[in-house]
């Protein structure tokens, strides 16, 4: 039995784990799968007689999780100076404590 650790950049959450596992565990010769969304890696133990790494990668790619390719989608790219443009657009300015903050916390209530 052999094992291989594959980087799968699109495996970034546990609903992807369910899909990756579904794809791999159906594959004949795959004995054990650890799909880790935390580390975006898949550990596959397989019987080299029945299946090979290329096939595993192919199945992964078909399932939408190509090995080593793609990346977590980032909708907001960093800008040159990192001045975050979105902050300025926030309809939000406060230079006093919000009343609800005080009222909701019983500790600080003063009647």
């Amino acid at each position: 039995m052999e094992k291989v650790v594959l980087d799968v950049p699109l495996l970034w959450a546990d609903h992807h784990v369910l899909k990756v596992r579904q794809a791999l565990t159906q594959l004949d010769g795959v004995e054990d799968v650890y799909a880790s969304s935390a580390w975006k890696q898949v550990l596959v133990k397989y019987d080299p007689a029945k299946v090979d790494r290329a096939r595993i990668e192919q199945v992964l790619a078909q399932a939408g999780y190509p090995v080593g390719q793609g990346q977590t989608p980032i909708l907001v790219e960093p800008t040159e100076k990192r001045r975050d443009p979105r902050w300025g657009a926030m309809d939000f300015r406060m230079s006093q404590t919000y009343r609800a903050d005080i009222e909701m916390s019983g500790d600080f209530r003063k009647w």
Partner: protein
Amino acid sequence: MAKKKVRTPQEASRDPAAVALLERALEIGAETCFYRADEITPCPIGAEGLCCRFCAMGPCRLVGDVDMGVCGATIDTVVARNFARAVAAGSASHSDHARDLAYTLLAAAEGHAPDYKIRDPYKLFEVARYLGVKVGDRPINEIARDVALAALGEFGRVQGELLYLKRAPAKRQKIWRDLGIAPRAIDREVVDLLHRTHAGNDQDAEHLLDQAMRCALADGWGGSMLATDITDILFGTPAPVRSEANLGVLREDMVNVIIHGHEPTLSEIIVAAAQDPEIIAYAQSKGAKGVNLAGICCTANEVLMREGIPLAGNFLQQELAILTGAVDAMVVDVQCIMEGLVPLAQRFHTALITTSPKVRVSGAVHIEFDEHRALEIAKQILRTAIDRFPQRSEVFIPDIRAQLVPGFSHEYINYALGGTYRGSFRPLNDAIIAGRIRGVVADIGCNNARLCHDENHYYVVAEFLKNDVLVVQTGCGAIASAKKGYMTPEAALEYAGPGLREVCEAVGMPPVLHLGACVDNSRILTVLSQMVSETGLGDDISDIPAVGMASEWMSEKALAIATYCVASGAYVIMGGVRNPVAGSPYVNQLITEGWEKKVGGRLEFLEDPEEIVRRSLAHIDRKRAALGLEEYNPAKWGKSGDWRIREVLELPLEERLQAVYGRR
């Protein structure tokens, strides 16, 4: 007079870039303010406030057996009068700056200044609320016009008191009103104080100093605060940006234009003009790659906070910048501009360009700024600079610069601590209450050529960080820390105590926060007021474990700032040079114990930086105890952070999957 001992460059500055250029100055025989400071002995009589020049019967030097002027004015009166005059001048400077901004806003709103627009409408709405301007569904320019007019109204307010006073905690407002020092109108308080200090007027030290507080409050809660707010409205409320500091930001291959002074009105437009393709093309036609802007003093801070324009240095580096030979133009507006620049600029190819209708310097080029034609003038200035580029001779740029993350407006801090939906000061108050943050220190203000440049700033900031004190800075003090690298987020890991480090890591902020120009000290007042209203730290500014200081002060503006901070309840230490009221123990006692009794804050002049740190920490601990907060204990903190996950990340997958569950 015999020649004094002249300091070596290493004795004159702690900043390596400055040292390199001071050496360069020696080499080429150029004279700087450092040299002149060594040459000139400060007048010992004036230094202690004992010289009375208020009428032509004098000047009376109240030294030795003389304890009364010709008119009979006592030492106490004279010392208080001198101090009060300085406060009046300082307040006038900030406030006049504010007035010009308000006029710019008015012109922009009315469409006469097409190069300006309202960059932060939300701030406009907020300010409108304070100034009693209706927002509703009205067009933004209409609101802006009314805000500008309301702001201008504050200067000559006919009746009542300044509208912004209501931003202070209720208890503070009551103190002002009970003492009769709630400012009425900005101009009026300055004029009133000037009037009182005229010969033969107010001749009671305490009474004079009360008006000094009132005048300073008109600056802090009036002029300065309006200046900050209107600048934010016109040019955007600052949020963190990345930038660099020190003379190493000058570029050999670009046209270097230094903007120096205090007002952002022109420099913001220069920033825009420098990116204009037409200007870039023109620069390229002269063999440069483009135009590189860098700032000195508070103009620098203004454009740094909003545009990320790098800092070339602080007040004492204005001459040194020219000594690099790489500055093609230095554009100055108002305040803190040394006349010594002229002879230096003449030795190089540098164009020294004055722009303010209020400031001309003999020997400098004057291109008068007019906000109605702002962009046009900015381009004219830049062309002047570009034209000088080919005349450069030898260039000496020390390769020294540090990174920083400035841009901490009060509003951003509020956002940073909770995001759009939960922004508040609660995490900051919590951190102080728990003792992760021992207290807050604002180290602000100038450089002083009589001191070793930046030495006090470096020292006190480092000590405070070590002791888990959060430091906020403005003005030239901020530039000092920027150059030292205290304003990078990484500095928290390197210099901060365990509790402060935890807080900085949680927020991702540097341990020293850059709040802006010296006029932006008003932001500190707003921050303190909100800390009070957030509850848990007492019910007045004077209850908060915080200290203000200008550890290398030199200007009258610094005295105005100090006075409004004290009158707002803060303990303020002026560091470095001699106590300007030392001549009268009574006046000194009035501004220390006297003011503490009256307004809860006190003003002290301390020469020794170690003493500054000692007294500050003692004050902070005393305030903590008074609030019933836990005693500061750094051993309790420092358990958060990323350190542990790094070990895990280094392991191969299979081991990592086990390691995340911890060691058995």
